[in-house]
């Protein structure tokens, strides 16, 4: 085979493998509420989309946000607030998303100029301020007691008191969000973003405005984080201060790294693994910190590309071996 035709074959194969991954993930998510408790399944969807949103910024733009809880949390609070004030579910979810976007405009505008660790820290700083506001503004957030027991009036005959129904509604939202991310990454916009990530000066010299691209990516990421936050509030019927805590920002970083960054599927798998582990530990009577810590340490030593990334490497190497034979 010539080099060119081999490359064509590889992209062909990659496209195939991507399609297989997509179908596998789709099937898995369709049957998930039969495999695990529906509310846990819902959690996996919400956190999965949150991790995808984070990875848009981290994996594809090279910006490690350490303050994404601000968008997830503000959206969760907005959704819960709207629901407890008699708004319908669609209004509340859109309201949550919009609140996250609104917050992302100033934060993104001010922070995407920074790079590396400075970007991480400035996003953390803003998230800490949001967290402080959430604690203070008890009329909206319920403070330490949090918000719970808000109504989820049925829409189009869908009974939202049933967790399985909620799951499939969220699955639709998840699919929409995932599609946005998927399309964005493959679009010329996404390609330019990755070019900027790899070499900002060169990208600039061929006419890209890095700020505009990064800012747009920030907004999309925050919007999707907002969507996942409202899914979380709607799904659980509970919102507490935990949603704006820096640990939440840290958790989504860990989920993404564990699953595999820039793979799009990886963050979802990572979120699933972390949540399943957490769920297992609620009854396993094992020391939570030791087990979770060990998982992270082993993952970074042996599955550095994340689970999905490792599997992909392995498949790619295998197919390269096959080519040679």
């Amino acid at each position, binding site marked *: 085979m010539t080099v060119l035709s081999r490359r064509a074959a590889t992209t062909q194969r990659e496209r195939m493998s991507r399609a297989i991954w997509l179908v596998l993930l789709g099937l898995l998510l369709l049957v998930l509420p039969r495999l695990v408790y529906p509310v846990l399944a819902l959690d996996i969807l919400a956190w999965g989309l949150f991790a995808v949103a984070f990875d848009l910024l*981290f994996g594809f733009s090279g910006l*490690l946000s350490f303050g994404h809880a601000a968008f997830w949390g503000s959206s969760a609070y907005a959704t819960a607030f709207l629901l407890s004030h008699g708004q319908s579910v669609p209004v509340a979810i859109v309201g949550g998303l919009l609140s996250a976007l609104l917050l992302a405009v100033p934060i993104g505008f*001010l922070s995407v*100029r*920074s*790079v*590396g*660790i*400075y970007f991480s*820290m*400035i996003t*953390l*700083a*803003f998230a*800490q*301020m949001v967290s*402080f506001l959430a*604690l*203070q503004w008890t009329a909206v957030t319920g403070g330490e007691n949090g918000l719970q027991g808000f109504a989820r009036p049925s829409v189009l005959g869908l009974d939202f008191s049933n967790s399985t129904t909620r799951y499939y509604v969220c699955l639709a939202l998840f699919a929409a969000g995932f599609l946005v991310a998927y399309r964005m990454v493959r679009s010329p916009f996404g390609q330019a973003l990755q070019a900027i990530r790899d070499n900002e000066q060169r990208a600039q010299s061929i006419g890209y405005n890095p700020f505009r691209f990064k800012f747009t990516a920030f907004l999309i990421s925050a919007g999707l984080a907002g969507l996942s936050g409202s899914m979380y509030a709607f799904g659980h019927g509970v919102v507490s201060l935990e949603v704006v805590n*820096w640990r939440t920002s*840290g958790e989504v*970083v*860990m989920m993404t*790294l*564990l699953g595999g960054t820039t793979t799009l599927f990886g963050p979802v798998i990572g979120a699933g693994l972390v949540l399943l582990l957490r769920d297992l530990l609620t009854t396993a009577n094992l*020391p*939570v*910190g*030791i087990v*979770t*810590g*060990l*998982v*992270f*340490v082993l*993952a*970074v*030593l042996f599955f*550095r590309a994340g689970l999905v990334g490792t599997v992909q490497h392995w498949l790619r190497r295998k197919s390269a071996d096959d080519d040679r034979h």
Partner: protein
Amino acid sequence: MNTQFLLIQVFNGLVNGAFYALLSLGLAVIFGMLRIVNFMHGALYMLGAFVAFALGQILGLGFWPSLVLAPLLVALLGMALERTLLSRLYGLEPSYNLLLTFGLTLLTQDLVKQVMLSQYAVSSAPYTTPTVLTGVVNLGFVVFPKYRLFVIALALVVCLVTWFVIEKTRVGAIVRASTENPVVTRSLGIDVGKWVTGVFGVGVGLAGLAGVLAAPIYSVEPYMGAELIITTFAVVVIGGMGSILGSIVTGFAVGVLAAVGAAVYPPMANTLVFVLMAVVLLVRPTGLFGLPEGAR
């Protein structure tokens, strides 16, 4: 709220500042030399306090021997971790280090907790002030605990010595060279790896020292470093990543800011540092004392 009370708070803030300075100095040394963000720093601080407690329980050692021994033990542990684990990740994306040190943090916290629970009814350790330094002293403008004065003094000395060694001595020059240009340094016949391990040891040793110093005045419990590490990150960033002087000055300054903040509007006290960080980064993107990217 009178002026004298605010002035007292400025002075009082130096105590907290001393802890921030020691911790952020350690982080800055490690980052400057190794380009690692050591998430484990808070856990090593905690470990310093618990090692001091254990030395007292097992060997009957008091505060003073522990003040020397505990940081050394923490430094040794840090160096072992650097050799066996962290060194595998050099040259890779820095976020892997974050994941690794985060995992080690969870592990350490829980290990300490389990060990404590197996030995005592609770996971917190009582630790008392050394007898010579108990009690308060009247400074004229304020009645202040003797031990806190000692903390300020010791931290200042340690910070200045560290700064002097790194910036002004031959040892410091080698250390700086081996991280800024490892290839050239190696060609001069210097074992870079050994220096890196040593520097990491010094950095975490400082965290261990801060931990021992904290034991008599703060609650000694497995999560004592968990919130502190986030504030310390902010201090390092405000000062400028890797800047030795920056971390010392900012450490003390943030301590003072928090104490004055606590006097003026208490609920906001711990959030002020993040407000300051946002403002500083917007005006000076690489921190107060940081060099612009690429200038190194």
